[in-house]
């Protein structure tokens, strides 16, 4: 039996969704029998192969994240969003109400612990977008598992539904935004 190929990325977020995924405990062994994890932050593989399921944690706040997301979308049959940041913008989007120059200045120059500093401007540093976007505002998303982080049970439920060939929609009692 060929295994279902999965890739995942974390964009602007805290990695909490991936940690919550690891909280599925022994179910991960079962999952490993039918799923092949390709590029994920856990496997540290850099290239995107063509996958069945692409998973994205985090919102889109800079040009690099936008590029990675678009690449993942292009390589995935189904794209699943994990967590409040990916689904709604989440905590990362708190900066969206402010001007990005203000945000950079506050973060790099005005921080109480900073004495002499400037805003990073090397060409290697990806530029901030004006506003943080949930992933469905950048690419098409097929299914969502909200939560901050999503509960392990909800993540497992969504994966199992996908493996069974259905597009998951979390039942009301599994929905969480916190």
């Amino acid at each position, binding site marked *: 039996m060929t295994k279902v190929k999965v890739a995942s990325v974390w964009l602007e977020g805290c990695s909490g969704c991936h940690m919550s995924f690891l909280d599925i405990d022994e179910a991960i062994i079962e999952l490993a029998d039918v799923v092949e994890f390709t590029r994920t932050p856990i496997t540290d593989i850099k290239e995107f192969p063509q996958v069945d399921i692409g998973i994205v944690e985090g919102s889109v706040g800079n040009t690099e994240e936008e590029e990675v997301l678009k690449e993942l979308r292009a390589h995935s049959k189904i794209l699943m*969003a994990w967590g*409040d940041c990916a*689904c*709604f*913008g*989440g*905590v990362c*989007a*708190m900066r*969206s*109400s*402010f001007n990005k120059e203000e945000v950079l200045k506050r973060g790099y120059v005005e921080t109480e612990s900073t004495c002499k500093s400037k805003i990073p401007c090397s060409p290697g540093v990806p530029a901030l977008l004006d*506003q943080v*976007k*949930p992933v*469905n*505002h950048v690419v098409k*998303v097929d*299914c*969502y*598992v*909200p939560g*901050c982080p999503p509960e392990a049970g909800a993540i497992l439920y969504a994966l199992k539904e996908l493996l069974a060939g259905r597009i998951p*929609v*979390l*039942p*009301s*009692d599994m*929905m*969480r*935004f*916190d």
Partner: protein
Amino acid sequence: MKEIMLTINGKQVKGKEGDTVLEVCEANNIYVPTLCHLKGLTDVGACRMCVVEIERERRPVPACTYPARDGLVVQTHNEKLDKYRRLILELMFTERNHLCAQCVASGDCELQSLAYKYQMDNARYPYSWPALPLDSANDYLVIDHNRCILCGRCIRTCDEIVGVHTLDFGHRGWKDMVVADLNQPLGASSCISCGACFQVCPTGAIFSKNSAYKGKPEECRKVNSICPICGVGCEIEALVKDNRLVRIDSPDLSDKRGILCHKGRFAPLYNKNERVKTALVRNGRGKLEPRPLPEAIDIVAKKLAELKAKYGNNSIAGIASSQASNDSLKAFKELIAGTIGSNLIDTLDGDAYRTIIKGINGTGAKGGLEIETSLEEILNADCIIVVGANPLESHPVAGSYIARAARRSKVTLIAIDPSQNTFPYHATLWLKPQEGNEQLAVDVLSKTIIQKGTKKDSARTKEVATSLKDINVKQNSKQAGIGSDDLLEAAEMLSKAKHSIIVYGEDILRHNNPALITSLLKLATITGSQDKEKPQIISLKPKGNSRGAWNLGIANSSQSIIKNLTSNNVKALYLLLSDDYVDASELPNLSKGLEFIVIQSSYLASATSKADIVLPSPIWAEVGEKYTTLDGLTESTSRLIKPSDGIKADAEILREISQQMKK
């Protein structure tokens, strides 16, 4: 009410004429999601969550504002309506900055619950991410506009339930916002901090500083009790977690007596006064030092017995704060008047009692405070006269009953008040006599009414008329500083009213002028209600349990004891303050000529520093005891939290002292 029949979701259901479609659904247990709707408030159809399909209507309509009719065919749930509801939720989530993960209300939010229910796992609309302010200028409340969905519940509650109407919508369209007064910070506005807006807010837009992040309702124990702070006797529902008060709400805001004020809702949670945790005894170096409670009780009993033997029973005076419970006060009276046998027993607010009683006796009426009417009557009145009081400050819930009634066009409010307090601004008519001429103003008003001819044509009205025969309306109104037009208008309002009531308060009682109370009672005799025997008058008493203390006869002394300690040759003073925070300035001449001062108090106030022995008191939330409301109903409170070790009920300590003295 005529019965009507509707078809809802294919089923025949009964309704009443005048009901909305939502009311019919609720009466028939048919669930319709709502956000801006709240029992007790006028429905406005702001949120559109309750949209339903009605046959022959071109588009879905909000059930909360659609009048039910006979034969109406209604559909409350189908795929299309659920799609619309989810769409509305997505619009709400993208309109402002709803970030559940860092919101105080997460887990207790109606917006969030509906999003879960309608499986809103993403929002398709462009996010506005508006930059919105957060108003934390109020002592207790924060308005975070980021989380507001503009449902208007707070605004309608502030207007229709609380009667203050501080909150309203400001700006227009896209910039629409809840504002206080003319867009003032809440802390600088006419807000009375009653917290009703916080209780009704469906999201985390209005929250209480000391309740935030302390625990979600499902993690808390719920305890129902009565608030004994001002004597109105409001029902409260407290949420308690780990022996800590998380929040206090009204069990039913839609009930006509369901309002709470900042004292009941917030004071217990924001209490920063330093507590007396154990007995304190003045040592050889003159400093108060902590001692075990039994040891302190022993010293008190011995010392009191010694002074009693040396100087006689009346060398010991007992003064209590009327904030103490009936249970504490009974034990206090037993110790002072019983065991010690002293006549010198009084309450700190004894002068107010003496003024009221002398005033009542001045009319020849029998029954003392029993002649007063009940607070309930304020709710039935169509004309309310407030004399020398700011009930929104002293008894805010009673103030709300009055201000709320005055907002309704059929109820008139007459304020008789010479001072600068803000309550008369709520009045339909403000009679502003010169300071000190209040009594004359009241008499002139009575005389005007009698000259106009009162409906209450009884023997007592004649008595009043005789007693006012020397009043000359023209001359005396000028003397009192009241315009004749105003007088006539007031008389007109009162004669039109079917049920008027007089409410007077501390500004009047402060004058210690019984004749003024007598005049008010005369006015009550010729006005009031035709079908009520009792004069419709009620006094707003100084402390939460004033009526209880006075009913127990603790203030029966003919003069103030606290003001006459020296002239009575008092050698020892027992002060029961309980959870009343008393400043030393309220207790003049405390140390003059006194050999021994015992203060039983919950708090370390400047007063307690004058004591030789300080005994700890619990606060009301730590004991379940009896209190009497200002209109004479005796109610039991429940214990909300446990006191810390070593704190006993006042009555227990007082009884122990009594027992030891009897040994």
